[in-house]
């Protein structure tokens, strides 16, 4: 019994590792195809060819690509992402200093967005066909369609410039009280919530509408179960799979896809680090960031898969 579900979970894990390896290879190939050269970039346009060649040699860029790939992959497996080509610092340290900030922003956004999205989605599903349902449907389409830079700029314009309630930039250094924290995070969290909530709410609604139209829900109604009991006890356990997937998908965006939001609010997160890395052709940094985003994405999606498997008694008790 437990053997079969163990196999299933192990299979998911192996698939995730295989995907990660595939992604690593892709990241390596693509970053090496990027135009520009770090040595040229560092030394400027007036550098002599000899100086550039010397720097390339000292940075290890003259080694054949396949060899570099193996060294890099070996380093990744040991947890060593190499050194930055620009300032010589270990990439791990560079990322470490920013990762906490990104996780903090992602965490706070998740805490706000997930319950809100679930509540909206559940309410829309329960009141299917009502004005409220249609309002949520329209609202979420609107939210998905508006680009995040517009949302962020509009939020800054309204709350920072006109109303002067909140700071336009998120400076993490000055947090002492809860109120400080609220002021720093309010705008970026609001913007990100706006961006990721729509998808989750829509998927929750779709999954739940599907379940709510099944025969066993009708049966529960005909047993005299209350609306709350039907949703919480009967419907939600059967909708966990698709909802968990939607949440994982949306949350993975919070680590990698927030470049614009971090840039607008000058928030010192990972995404901004990666953009800087691309600008300076700091290949090891870009590669490490890309791997980090992919890893986080895989982790979330695999977690959602596992949750869906564990929530399904047909898979749990075979």
């Amino acid at each position, binding site marked *: 019994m437990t053997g079969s579900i163990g196999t299933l979970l192990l299979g998911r894990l192996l698939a995730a590792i295989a995907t990660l390896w595939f992604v690593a290879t892709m990241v390596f190939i693509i970053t090496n195809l990027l135009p520009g050269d770090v040595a040229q970039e560092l030394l400027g346009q007036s550098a002599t060819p000899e100086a550039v060649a010397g720097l390339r040699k000292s940075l290890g860029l003259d080694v054949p690509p396949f060899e570099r790939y193996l060294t890099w992959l070996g380093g990744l497996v040991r947890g060593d992402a190499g050194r930055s080509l620009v300032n010589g610092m270990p990439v791990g340290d560079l990322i470490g200093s920013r990762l906490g900030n990104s996780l903090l922003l992602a965490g706070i956004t998740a805490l706000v967005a997930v319950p809100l999205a679930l509540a909206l989605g559940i309410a829309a599903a329960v009141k*299917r066909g009502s004005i409220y349902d249609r309002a949520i449907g329209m609202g979420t389409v609107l939210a998905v369609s508006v680009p995040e830079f517009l949302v962020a700029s509009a939020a800054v314009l309204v709350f920072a410039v006109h109303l002067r309630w909140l700071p336009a930039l998120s400076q993490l250094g000055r947090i002492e009280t809860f109120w400080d924290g609220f002021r720093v995070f309010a705008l970026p969290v609001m913007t990100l919530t706006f961006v990721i909530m729509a998808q989750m709410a829509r998927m929750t609604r779709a999954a739940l509408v599907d379940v709510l*139209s*099944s*025969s*066993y829900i*009708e*049966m*529960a*109604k*005909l*047993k*005299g*179960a*209350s609306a709350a*009991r039907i949703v919480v*006890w*009967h419907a939600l*356990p*059967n909708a966990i799979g698709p909802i968990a997937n939607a949440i994982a998908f949306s949350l993975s965006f919070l680590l990698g896809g927030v470049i614009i939001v971090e840039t607008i609010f000058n928030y010192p997160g990972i995404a901004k680090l990666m953009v800087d890395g691309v600008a300076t052709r700091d290949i090891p940094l870009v590669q490490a960031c890309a791997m980090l985003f992919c890893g986080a994405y895989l982790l979330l999606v695999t977690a959602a898969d596992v949750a869906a498997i564990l*929530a*399904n*008694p*047909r898979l749990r*008790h075979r």
Partner: protein
Amino acid sequence: MAPLIEIRDLRVEARGDDGQPVEIVKGVSFTVERGEVMGLIGESGSGKTTIALALMGYARFGCRISGGTVRIGDTEVTGLSEAALRKLRGRRVAYIAQSAAASFNPSRTIMQQVIEAARIHGTLDEAAAREKAIGLFRAMAIPKAETIGERYPHQVSGGQLQRLMAAMALITDPEVVIFDEPTTALDVTTQIEVLKAFKSAIRDRNTTGIYVTHDLAVIAQIADSITVLRHGFVQETAKTGMLLASPAQEYTRNLLAAAEPARRERPALVETAAPLLKVTGLTVGYGGLDAEGMPLVPVVREVDLAIRQGEALGVIGESGCGKSTLARAISGLAPPARGTVELGGKVLGPGLAQRSREELREIQLVFQSADTALNPRVSIGEIIGRPLTFFFGLKGAERDRRVRELLDLTHLPASVLNRQPGDLSGGQKQRVNLARALAAKPRLLLCDEVTSALDTLVAAAILDLLAELRKELGLTTMFISHDLKTIRAICDQVLVLYAGRVVETLPASAISARGHHPYAKLLFSSVPALHQGWLDGLAAPAMPASATEAQGREGCTFFHRCELRMEGTCDRIVPPPRQTPEGLTVACHHPLEG
């Protein structure tokens, strides 16, 4: 004393495709005395389920109760608030749905769901409710009554789930129980056990029941009175005996006639030496092959059969016995692992790819569900015309003429030519399905449950059509069905399949007499007869059925359910087919009785 249930001028509206309300129940009135069972019978769309649900003040999504009154005891159900309705549902009126498999929540254990109503309404505490549930399981003759509640719905068979649902309904001792086609999805052998359990539960508790079904023979066993419904109107209401003996309405008479289909006229067979279709040692399965080249999951095992020119062979058996797979293997859709298919003395290739276009043309398969077999975006003219072009290269006016001939042959009006399947009724779609197969001028027509999804009267018309086609075209057919009455109506020979093996072959005229193989006997005796008291007159089966154990590769597939089984023989050796003097072929170790 006033009747317990009184429905007066009930009207239910549904929102139509154009958003306008359409009345689907149009002023229905009837009463039910306490302790009696009222049968609601009608075809799909007659409003029978809608009426039954209205007794609980419930209308499905998009529907609403628009007029009339429903009274249960002193309660006007139609006037209750949503909160008051919740107190009524599951407490005073309980519901048993058609598909137990769909009506149990897959994420909760059976016990949690069975006692839910008692917990919601607070009639019993947790421990007492569990105890009562186990008592009900026993009363319903559910095996492993003490532990079955801890399982999840997917771990329990359909027939058991149906009885578990009855226990779920009875947990609060409701005054009224609504049975909504509770045995329609079950095999006949299982249906009997479930019907018996229902009947004793109703009798022991003096429960008032509403029994919804389309099957007159089933309702005759359970109901005291019957209301016949059509298009949302009551046709007639009468005591069951009265209704069966002397129906007042033409429509009821038609229903009665269709419930016991008469044997259709059949053409005399030309005796020829070689059969048209000869199947030898056919084994078909899924999964990979084992060391002996046998499929890991065999569905059809070592089947031999022969059909003579112009003959109709019926194939019968319960769901999962391999009927459809057999037809798919003969048509080339499911290549067999072993065995051969010969048509007109010529061995056919195992799969579609190994057969010539001419060989493909000669065998045509008609699928059960015309809804899924016909492309919804293609016009009827094109559906029938395509095989004409494919097999005969017909085009233009010539093709049109042939399409019209085929429409005429299947009694379809020429006006359907440019319409799409979605615009046609179920019966018309099935005719198109047949016309499409006939377009290829097949030598052998394989009909897979072609009447099973249709209403009784529509199905009867399709049977008439098939009988007529046989007479006019001299068609050779293999007719697959789970319904013995249908098979008996149009077939010459009948083949009984159990777990992929042929257990008996007999002339259709011999069905009504008892079969020889123990399974055939059980199957034939399980088909409800259209008279009251048939169920009560049945002897209890000597051994309880255990449907899922018939998996062994050795021995008789029916071993685990057989009341005549002989340990040491039947579980070791596959019984070889034996001829009886009456022309039957029986695969059983037991000495055959006359």
